[in-house]
């Protein structure tokens, strides 16, 4: 029952800067929710508001069914009474305390019995593979170990909700990969609700059960990683998630036959059959089609002819950039393949659901199947 509910949260820093704009979010018990967005979009502010370190200008926050903040009822429960754990970007460990002391400090402050504190700290040290480091000082630890100490300290009081603000930004790539697995495992072990802030879409996609994508204080989409990946709500979401990023091709569209849409550009002509419901568009409407790089295959029977612009093999996969007229398409081919630049190739699109956006509003208007003409 550790739900977090945000209702119409607005945060203004002064009259003109709105950091968070009318955000409503429901985070369910046991979820691993990532607040994802580019730098300065307000995600850390949201996390700080949940923790109680920042006051919203308007709106209500419920944790565990209890109201912890309301601008109308003038309620503001202080952070220490919200039963949430918080990890800062720079860990904020006490440099003058040993690892043991760092973890035990909060518990001792809460007047736990000495024996109970010892037991709990031992348990945490074991859980986070920190045995044998009890007597070291933070400066004598590596970045990953420091982070684990910070996590142990956060977990000490057994909070049901854990809030993390880019905890991995200071780690190197390999360590980050390891910590991702550790953190995901920790989520399964503790059954707590995680709220995690990051600007790294890969971290968000791999770890979370749900992602809320935020752009300049406005919630763009809230859903599971695959939903975000396969059914992006708008061009921003489609472009933000996925690496290499989605190919966005501009077309002018026209309704043909029943509900099909003929997409034409100077480079290619496609028939789009919507599967999410018919869409009426004006003749010559400006549309943008999103094609994920892995959905493009290079085959001899493809109807669209292009040239290899560059080929980047990495062993596991090869990212090939193909130039068709003035359009560049990135495609990912799995396996050890390499192409010479300038080689003429034909491409076709795999059988998948492709998102179609309105160029003017950026909103997705339909998902559908593609057929090359």
């Amino acid at each position, binding site marked *: 029952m550790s739900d977090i509910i945000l209702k119409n949260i607005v945060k203004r820093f002064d009259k003109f800067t709105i950091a968070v704009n009318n955000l409503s979010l429901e985070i369910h018990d046991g979820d691993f929710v990532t607040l994802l967005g580019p730098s300065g979009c307000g995600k850390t502010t949201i996390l700080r508001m949940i923790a109680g370190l920042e006051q919203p200008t308007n709106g209500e926050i419920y944790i565990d069914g209890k109201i912890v903040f309301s601008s109308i009822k003038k309620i503001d429960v202080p952070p220490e009474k919200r039963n949430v754990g918080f990890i800062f970007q720079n860990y904020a460990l006490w440099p003058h305390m040993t690892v043991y002391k760092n973890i035990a400090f909060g518990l001792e402050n809460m007047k736990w019995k000495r024996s109970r504190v010892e037991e709990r700290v031992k348990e945490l040290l074991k859980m986070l593979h920190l045995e044998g480091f009890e007597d070291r000082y933070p400066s004598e630890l590596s970045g990953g170990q420091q982070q684990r100490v910070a996590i142990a300290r956060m977990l000490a009081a057994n909070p049901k909700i854990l809030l993390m603000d880019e905890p991995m930004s200071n780690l190197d790539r390999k360590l980050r990969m390891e910590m991702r697995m550790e953190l995901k495992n920790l989520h399964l072990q503790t059954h707590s609700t995680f709220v995690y802030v990051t600007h790294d879409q890969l971290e968000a996609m791999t770890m979370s059960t749900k992602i809320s994508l935020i752009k300049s204080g406005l919630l763009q989409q809230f859903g599971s990683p695959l939903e975000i990946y396969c059914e992006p709500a708008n061009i921003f979401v489609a472009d933000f998630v996925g690496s290499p990023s989605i190919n966005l091709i501009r077309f002018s569209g026209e309704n*043909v*036959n*029943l*509900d*099909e849409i003929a997409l034409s550009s100077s480079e290619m002509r496609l028939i789009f059959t919507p599967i999410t*419901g018919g*869409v009426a568009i004006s003749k010559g409407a400006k549309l943008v089609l999103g094609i994920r790089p892995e959905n493009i295959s290079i085959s001899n029977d493809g109807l669209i002819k292009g040239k290899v612009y560059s080929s980047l093999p990495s062993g596991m996969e090869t990212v090939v950039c193909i130039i068709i007229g003035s359009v560049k398409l990135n495609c990912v081919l799995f396996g050890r393949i390499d192409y010479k630049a300038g080689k003429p190739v034909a491409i076709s699109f795999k059988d998948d659901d492709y998102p179609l956006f309105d160029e003017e509003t950026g909103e997705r208007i339909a998902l559908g199947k593609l*057929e*090359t003409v």
Partner: protein
Amino acid sequence: MKRFILSMLVPVCAFIFLVVLSFFCISVYKSEVQKQAIHTMEVLDDYISKAKANGESIDSRTFITRLSEIADCRVCLFSGEGNLLIDSDTTGSKDPDPYSAVNTTETKNGVISDSISYQDNQHFLNEFSYFKSDNANSFIICASFPLSRFNNLLLIQKSIILGGCILLITAVLFYGLWQKALSSKTIGITKSSNGLINKIKKIELYANERISLLSTVLANMESGIILFGTDCSILMMNPKAQSLTGAKSSLFFPHRPNPELEYPPVLIAILKMVRNSMSSKKTLIQDLHTDDGKILSIHIDIVYSKYIPYTFYGTQAFITDVTEKRRMEKIKDEFVSNVSHELRTPLTLISGFAETLQDWRELDDKDCERALEIIDIESKRLKHMISQLLDLSHIESRIGANNLVPIDPIETIRSIISTIQALSEKRNINFKIELASEKAEILGDKVSIVQIVSNLCENAIKYTPSGGNVLLSVQKEKNHLVILVKDNGIGIPESEIPHIFERFYRVEKSRNTKRGGSGLGLSIVKGLVDELGGDISVKSRLHYGSTFTVHLPLLCKEVTEGKTK
């Protein structure tokens, strides 16, 4: 705002210029008058000093009146302390107060000073001059010069200032009002544009819904529909039509040169029919045989606009896959001729022998008996055939779910074994029976069970040459009753197996004419088994015999108990 300020700059400058000009005019006028006054004062001073030298008394009314006459203006004489001593003007007007203009020390120092006083709607320039009399008394002499135009000038100046101010205020006020009206107008515009946006969104949603609805209906149609325009171009085609004609979606791409080059052959044939129909303006119905052996029924209609009467809109083609229907029709036709033939054969015999019997006196008893016997056999055969036909058409109405009761099928089968055995003996066939010893219960009716078993057994016996073997086995298997009829007779060709349960189907007409039969037996069995909720399967090899297996669901104990309760 900027433009307003800029445009206001010119009139404001002009206004300020006018005000400054008016002040300048006044000062010029004043200085002119002053010059005159000073001149006059000098004349007076000279006169006074002359008079003093002559020993005339200065502070006498006559002297002052004379001075006034010389200067042609009002002259007053004050004491050194500023008290009015003598005034040339006797009308009693207010005296010009010297201290309002000059202070005493300055006056005492002999400075000539002036001031402007206002009296009786008239401005005066007062010139003061100080001099000492012989007996150490000091006097101040004042001459008041009327400023005749000063009033007018002041009036002009005032009206300039007032008018300018009024103009400025009106301009600002007007600008304010104008701005307000403008802003309210823009609010109105944004409001109405918001309303428009909402309206467009609603229309969009509605259009999407309608498209989805029509597409769903058209996509779920059993037959294909193609709508052709007046120029024979394809306006619309539902997915069924696409799959039946093999047309790709790419056909719909607009503005393509010679789209007909991409048409599949079926579509080209349809297009030809459409052209015919369009030129004759008549409905056209035709079957089309495709290359892959399908038969498509094409129905082409002329379409008139629903909205503009008598306007030719195009043609629409309905495409229905009738391969199966045509095959069934063919079978039915064959059956009808077959059945009529089968019915006629015994009837011919019966009527023939009946005719013979009419002249029975010429026949001996043996022949009569033979004729009667044949009539009997043939009428029985006729009866059997007709009852089979009736059975077939009545299976569904005879056994409804309500007429089913729990029965013991094994017991029922046992009761008809003797009949089948008799038949097999007649044909010299080795008939073996394996019946389960335990009791079984199924939901059904006895007549159906009898018919199923006897039909299968009769068939087996019929299609097995003499000396062959036929096995009937009835066993319980899990929750099913399995009836198995196996023979080593002539078998069924593999290609015919899928069709043998069809109503009017007969394997090789030639082999049936010898053995008789209506081609209905197996379809009756199939119908009955279906009604009892079971299934029938067949394994067969030509010349090696066939095995028919019927599975019927056994009645579970709990169900019966539940029912009795």
